[in-house]
Structure formats: C-alpha cells, structure tokens
C-alpha cells in the first residue's frame, strides 16, 4: 500500500468536487471513493490501486431503501447484508436477495455496499499481481491470463486484450431486474440503465464502466416487476460457500396462460461484464416454459462463447445452470 490522503465527504457535492480533478475514474484513478472498502483496500494493499486521495463517503445520507410508487430506490451505501434481508427485496426481487447471499461471507456482506458491489473488480489473478502483464492494470503490457491459468476467466465478451471475469453476483441479478444506476456528477444527475453501465473490454480493458471523474453513484433503482414475475438466482462453484461463481444465472420470468410473457436472463461468472442474454430471452418469449425451451435458451445464451485453454467446461456448466434456474423459477 502506498501513502495517500484521506478525507471524509460531508455532502454529495463535497465528494464530487473533491474527486472531479482526477484524470480518470477508471483503473489507476488518483481519487477513489471508499464505502465498505472490501475491494478497494484489497487492491491498494496489492498496489493494484494507488489513489493519492481516498474520500470516505460513509457519512453521506445514502443508506436507505425506499419503496416508491414505481419500485425500489436503493441507497448507494445500503450494505449487502441489509439489502439481502430487506422484506420487499425478499418478496418482490428474490433473485437479488439470493444473489447477494450467495456472495462472499457474512462478514464481507456486512461491509460491502450496493454501489461498491457495482464497481467490484475482477478476481483475475494476473490483474491482482503487479509482477504480471495485464492490459487492464497496465495498458499495453499484454494479457498473461490468455496463455496462463484461466480456468476462472470469461468465455463471453472477451477480447484479445482481456478475458477478465466480472465476479459480482449482485450485478447479475440487477441485470435481470432492469435496474438503473443513479449517478451524480459535475453536470448534475443522470440515470444509466444497468445494461449500459458496464462496457466490454475491447481494446481498452482498463475502462470498465461509464463513470467519469467526480461521478458518484447515489442510488440503484429497481422498477416494480411485472405482475406474477418469479425470479431466481443459481450459482455454481467448486465448493459450497465463499467462492466466486464458475457460472451463475439470474432469471426473472412472467408466465401468462402457460406462455412466457416477460423474461430476463443474465449470466454470471462467464462474462467480462454481468451478462444479459437477449438471445436467451428471445428463445423463451412466447414459448411454454418447458425443458425444450430452456435448452434452446441455454444454447442461444452460450452460442458466442469463446473458451480459453482451461475453461471450456464453463460453457456446458453455464447451460446447465441456466436450464435449472429457469426450471426452478417456473416450477
């Protein structure tokens, strides 16, 4: 860890003003907000992140979950543990509660926040080790993971420059819930649909999302789910607890008169970003919820998958994961 300045923000504007002079809000940013610290402190100890200024936003009034006429408004500082146990989340958005509870450990969930989880960084072992080549950490240095130990890495959305997996469980659920992210920045407030929040690595893997210097995530909005929607999160991994997903699936399905009317499908553990699959949704829409439809959806979702030397099994695993999640949600 390298020495840094620490300040406590006493208002949203105070935070934004202090952060705005940074040249980037992406990898290597000279200013970082800290909430739960469960990602940032780790990366600072590893010298992967080395901000000169760390702004503590924990005192900002962003710790509430509000049930509004249009849905749910989740404050940026709502802890994962609290969000997972929130009665409206458990009732109307079970996929989110299940996703949160499948992640990390009880201790980490008590610290980790909603906005922090949105910005959770990859667990790619080469990203986390400064002795290794990594285009995400050090643009132009190469990707050591592609010819390296890549069992955990992505099969969807990769590029020749980066195959790092987005490790979040929560974000996969948010994809299936049509969430949007409320961002306050120098030019005021804006809402970004979750599907547009994360960007693909392409030739520029150090950029992971749309945030610009000064931008502060203040809330996540969830629209009310269509009536009768059932949702489910299924996470597959080697051990029973405390491991990132090898493959996961978040599904939200509304069945009307024996046919799938509304459906959202997102995959985790396999994509460079939380992976919404319009192809799978297309394969399901209007169909009866049965094994044939689920298989077609699973095939469609993984059609463009490109495996590395050690992770081809993830394709079949993700298919089984999605089929089972759909079967569970529609049972």
């Amino acid at each position, binding site marked *: 860890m390298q020495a840094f300045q620490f300040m406590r923000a006493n208002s949203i504007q105070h935070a934004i003003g202090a952060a705005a002079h940074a040249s980037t809000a992406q990898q290597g940013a000279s200013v970082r907000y800290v909430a739960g610290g469960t990602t940032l402190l780790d990366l600072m100890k590893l010298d992967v992140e080395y901000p000169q200024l760390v702004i503590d936003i924990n005192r900002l009034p962003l710790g509430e979950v509000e049930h509004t006429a249009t849905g749910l408004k989740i404050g940026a500082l709502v802890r994962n543990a609290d969000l997972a146990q929130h009665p409206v989340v458990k009732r109307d958005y079970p996929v989110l509660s299940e996703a949160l509870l499948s992640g990390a450990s009880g201790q980490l969930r008590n610290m980790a926040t909603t906005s922090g989880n949105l910005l959770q960084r990859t667990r790619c072992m080469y990203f986390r080790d400064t002795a290794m080549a990594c285009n995400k950490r050090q643009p132009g240095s190469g990707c050591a993971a592609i010819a390296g*130990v890549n069992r955990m890495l992505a099969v969807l959305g990769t590029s020749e420059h980066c195959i790092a997996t987005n490790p979040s469980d929560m974000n996969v659920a948010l994809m299936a819930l049509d969430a949007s992210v409320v961002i306050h920045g120098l030019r005021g407030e804006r809402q970004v649909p979750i599907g547009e929040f994360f960007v693909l690595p392409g030739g520029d893997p150090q950029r992971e999302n749309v945030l610009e210097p000064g931008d502060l995530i203040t809330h996540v909005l969830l629209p009310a789910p269509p009536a009768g929607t059932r949702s489910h999160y299924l996470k597959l991994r080697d*051990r*029973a607890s405390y491991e990132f997903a090898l493959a996961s699936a978040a599904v939200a399905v509304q069945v009307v008169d024996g046919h799938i009317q509304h459906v959202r499908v997102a995959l985790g553990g396999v994509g460079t970003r939380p992976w919404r699959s319009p192809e799978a949704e297309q394969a399901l829409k209007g169909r009866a919820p049965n094994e044939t439809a689920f298989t077609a959806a699973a095939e469609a979702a993984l059609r463009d998958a490109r495996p590395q030397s050690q992770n081809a099994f993830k394709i079949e*695993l993700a298919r089984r994961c999605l089929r089972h999640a759909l079967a569970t949600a529609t049972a």
Partner: protein
Amino acid sequence: MLTSNPSGMPFIGGRFARVDGPLKVTGRAEYSSDYNFPGLLYAVPVCATISTGKITHMDTSHAIKMPGVHEIFTRANIGPLQRVPKHNHGQMILDEHRPPLADDVIRYWGQYVAVVVADTFEQATAAARRVHVEYDAHTPDVRMAMTTGGKTDIDSHRGDTQTGFSTAPVKIDQTYSTPIETHNPIELHASVATWDGHNFTLYETTQSIMNHRRVMAAMLGVPVERMRIVMKFLGSGFGGKLWPWPHALLAAAAARNLERPIKLVVSRKMMFEDVGHRPNTQQRMRLGADHDGRLLSLQQDYLCSTAPNENNKEPCGEATPFLYSTPNLRVTGGLVRRDIAPSTAMRGPGAVPGLFAVESAMDELAVALDMDPVQLRQRNEPKIDESRNVPFSSRHMSECLSEGAKKFGWDKRNPKIGSMREGDTILGWGMASCAWMAARLPADVSVELHADNTARVLSATQDIGTGTYTVLAQLVAEYTGIPLDRITVDIGDSKLPPGPLSGGSMVTASVIPATKQAAEAALHQVMQAATQPGAAFAGTAMDELRVENGRVRRKGDAGNGRSLGSILADAHLDRVSGKGSSKSSSKDADADKLSFHSYGTHFVEVRWQPRIARLRVHRLVTMIDGGRIINERTARNQIEGAIVMGVGMALFEQTEYDARSGAPINSNLADYLVATHADQPALDVTFLDYPDYALNPLGARGVGEIGLAGVAPAIANAVYHATGVRVRQLPIRIEDLLQSRVSV
C-alpha cells in the same frame, strides 16, 4: 470401542476439554507474532519476481530514504549466515539449506532478495515495494507432468513383481497424480527475534523448538547455549512449520545487525512461495490378482518434484509394503527437478498421496473383479508385516473394515454405477483403508510436586494446536492423582528439558514413558519425606505406602491419608522435582521384532446432482485403530479436522504455477480453495481403542495424521460409484464430472 473410561484410569481415555482452551477463546494465548518489545522494528522481505536466473542490479537508494526505514539488508550487508551440512545425522533438519541472500542466484519465484527494516509494518512494506531489482531471467520449468530422468530408489522389494504381474489373470495398470498442495494454517509464519549482544531469543512459529534451536545457532554462528527458542502457541502447522525457513534467519540476522528486536510476519502470498509445500506426485500402480481377488503382485513406481538444490522426497510408499498380503511387491521412487521452491512435509507425508494411488487402484481392481471393495481388502489382510517378516504390534484393520461397513450400512450398497438415488440426486458410496507410522522420539520430562498441592510438568516440546498441553496434564494427573486444574504445563521453550518435535504423530507416545518416570521419581521423593523421622509416616517402609487421588496412605488403611503437598510442607520442602528420560523407540529391545503402525478405514457418501454438476461430500464413517486414545475429545478433533482437510485434498486444493513466470499464481485464500464449513460432511468417527503396549506403558500411538490418509481415495471411489468417472488426478473437478454419462 471407546467408552468413557475403559482403562479404569480416571485421567486417561475420557473426554477432557483443552486446559489451554480458555486462554485461546479469550485471546490471552500469546502466539509468536503477538510478542512485542521496546524498540521493536518490522522487517518485510523483498521477493524475487523471476523463478530462475540471476540478480544483475539492485537499487535500494530510493527505498532507504523512505519514512521510517532503518536499513535494507541485501547480500552485501546481511552479515555472516552459515550453511549447515546436508548430512548431519538428523541433528539439524531444514528443507532449504541455502542461507537467505547467500548469492545472486534465483532458484524460485518469491525467493527473498532483500529485507527492509522500518519502524512500522506499513513503512517497511511500502519501502520493500520500492526496492528496484533487475534480473537476468531464464525460462523456468514448472511442468507438473513428470518423466523418469534420474535414478530411482527401491524403497521396498520382495518376490518377483515382473513375473507376478505378467502372469496375473486380472491386472490394473494406471497412473495417478496429486498436485502441489500448500499448507494454509490460519497463523502465518512469523519470527520475533531479539539479541542482547550475546544471546538470541527467538519467538518462532515452529513445530520443533529443539531442532530450530540447533539450526539457528549453527547458521547464526553461536553456540546452542546462546540460542533460546520460544513457541507457546501455534495457529497450526500441518508440517509446514517443522523446519526453519529463511525468513527466520532474516529476522535474527537483522536483530543481530541492528541490535533491535525484529518482527517479521510473512504474507499469505509468501506462504505459497517461501515456506514449503507438499510436492506433486505421479504414481504408476500395477496390481495383479487372481480371480478370487488375491493380490499376486503390487508395484508402485512414483515420482515427485523437488527444488533444484534439494532432494526432498515425498515417500509415497510409506504405507504400501505392509498394507496388504502379496508375495511380490516393489516400490520405487524418483525425484524430478523443477524450478519451484523447496518442498517440505505436509500432514501424513508420503502416505497421504501414496494411499490415494494405492487405494484408488484397489478400487479399480475390485471393479475389474466385480468384487466388493471391502471384501477385496479383507481377502488380502496380512497376518504379519510381510515387508519385514515381523508380527504387527497391534493391528485391527479387519475390524476397521467390518465395523465401518456395519456402521455405514455398506450392505445396502448397490455396486452398479449411478444406481443409488434420492430424487434428482445420485448417491455414491466409496471406501478406502489407511495406515500411518507409530514411533517414539527421545523425550526428557520433569515433573515437580509443590507444597501447595499443585504440580508442574516441563519439557521442551510444543503444542501445535493438537492438545499436547492437555495430554501432558492428564498424564501427570494420572500418575500423581493431582487434578487437572492444579497442574501447570510448561512447554514451548528450549531452555526446558529437551522434548520431541511435533511431527509424525509422535508426541503423545513419546512423552508417556518419560512423564511416568518423572512423576514416579517425584513421588519417590515425597515418600522419602513422608517416612523420614518425625514425618507423618515415620517408621513406615516406603513400599507400605500408596498414592491415590493426590494423597498418601498406608496400604490397606481406610483413612484419609495426607496430601502430597502437606508432606512437603511438613518437611519444609517448597517442591520436589523428578526427572524422566526415554529413548527413541528405534532403540527398544524389540524394535526390530515388531511392526508399529496405526490403521483405519473411511466410508464415504457423496451426492451428485448431474443437472447442475454439483458434487458434495455428504457423510463419512471413519474407524481408527490408533492405539489407546488418551483424550477422546482432542483425538476426535484431530481426526475430524484431518477428514475435512481430506475433503479439500480430494476436491479443491491445488497450487497452480504459471508456466511462463513460474509463479504460484493462486497464492491467496480466495483462489486456493480449501474446504469451508459448508463443505464439511456429517462425520462419525470411532476409535477402536486397543492399547499398543509394545510402544509405551499406556499403549498410545498417535492420531495427528492418519485421519487425512485415505480420505481422498475414498471420495474418489465414491465419485466413481456415483458418476462412472474415474478421476486419477487430484483434485476432482467439475470439468472431470461433466464427462459423466449418468443422468436422472
């Protein structure tokens, strides 16, 4: 079977809580890195970022000017560190003989190239990152696949395996491999070193304070009398803390050079790079049998990797030669060099990876014979140790097999693959046998009896979390009648009478004879005091007296007698002290006439959900023939902990090396998977509790390691039964099981 008190000995065999438990759960137990002294400085090593090559340039000029930095030690200024000879009659054991910073050659990723000393850990860490090192790097060879290159040793040989195998009607010829596994005790390796200008006192994370003392004295160039090692509590070692590692020398040398106390705690990442691991193994098994399942020949040819400059062998044939009856047997072992750091012992070295191969192959033989695997093992149960042609001191493997099968419900097993189901879940049932050595190390023990009716037992052994504090207190209680809460156990300090190292499951067996002798010697002095003129039992012959419940009575006298303490007080003695000393079991008169081992069986149920490719270990029934159990509670804790470690070995653990850099790349607890609480199956452990009196007066052996042996093959065999996939390369992973053709 063990009942609450089978021996009629009140302090032996029951369920006794750890005497050090309250200290641990209240945070008062001082682990080695907890020690602090005035003026203490923090040391943080700089680690090589290549695996093989040379340092061509090192620039410390920026780092040395950073806040709080006192000194940066490199090859140029670390001062003298001596090399101990590799062959020294076992007096000084270590697995990395090169003293740290001895030259500019890099032999493994993470090798220490410098050490920064600063006022705080954070300052030292920040400066260590700023030490600039340039290398001439070569391409490392960290391949896991091995081919026989150098010479192989014959570990055990009888009969003619070539003919035995080639003429056998039923054959198995398969190769099994186990990966590099890294010890991950929660407590990191640590050294707190102090130097008073004349004497070193080192607070170390070690499983062997006496060996540590000899090695550190020799390498630092001081007589052993000027070297003191303290280790009061260990947050587990699993073999990784048996022998000294280079960080301890860096800390001690820095303390000497700066004349300040130094604390050096290695990072979790360094745990994967600098303090040993279990090497990977590759074992070709050839089994030949007749149609009735009688083994005609058994061959095990194993290879294991070793560091460029060390010859550390993982003796995979440890349990093979005496496990089964067969006229023809051969075990060979060979080393294959890799550009990987020196390996070391991990719980059940040799036997644990070795039994994965042996017991997997036995299961394959059972399948080939269409015979029940329990029956196959019963059929090949030997009457004597055929490798040495001597009887077993105490072997009840057959009962482990039959009783384990009964407790598990094995007779309900349908051997057809994937045939046992519960809804969408397929049940797999598998089993394996296990064995581990039994022996005593030399031990010196003192027992003091005090006038306040307390006792103290002293020995320079150590408790590595296994229960040695408690067992020593029990022994003194048993021999003196003084209750456990009035006994102080003083261990973990090299100034005490030299005791055994904590390895090989040998401490309990080793300390019994010496503790008995010491307690009896102390009691003898109490008797002398009791019978001297004017004393309570003046005029009574000493052999007319007996000690019971901490009190002295005349034999046949129903009275209350006198407490040991009051006799000492009457004689104006504050305390008496008795000494005990016992030799290694290899020096026993019948050492060559008996075969000493512990035995056991594991029966496993795995659950396989093919729809989601999810495998979980559901339950285990384990039988242990480990001699008399001294403390059922701490012993059970050892076996259960080992089984959970076995779940990790079977399904998760594997240190992965990046092929180009040679770095152990999953060097953290998120990427190196061990079993979590949620992975723990239901455990049902039974101790047969047959005393092995040929080993010591209480018949105890040791249970630290045997619980791990055999778990991985039992799970692999159960996985085969559930899925039809035979996994011969650990760990068993989802990608292997996706090949299963069993569906629901």
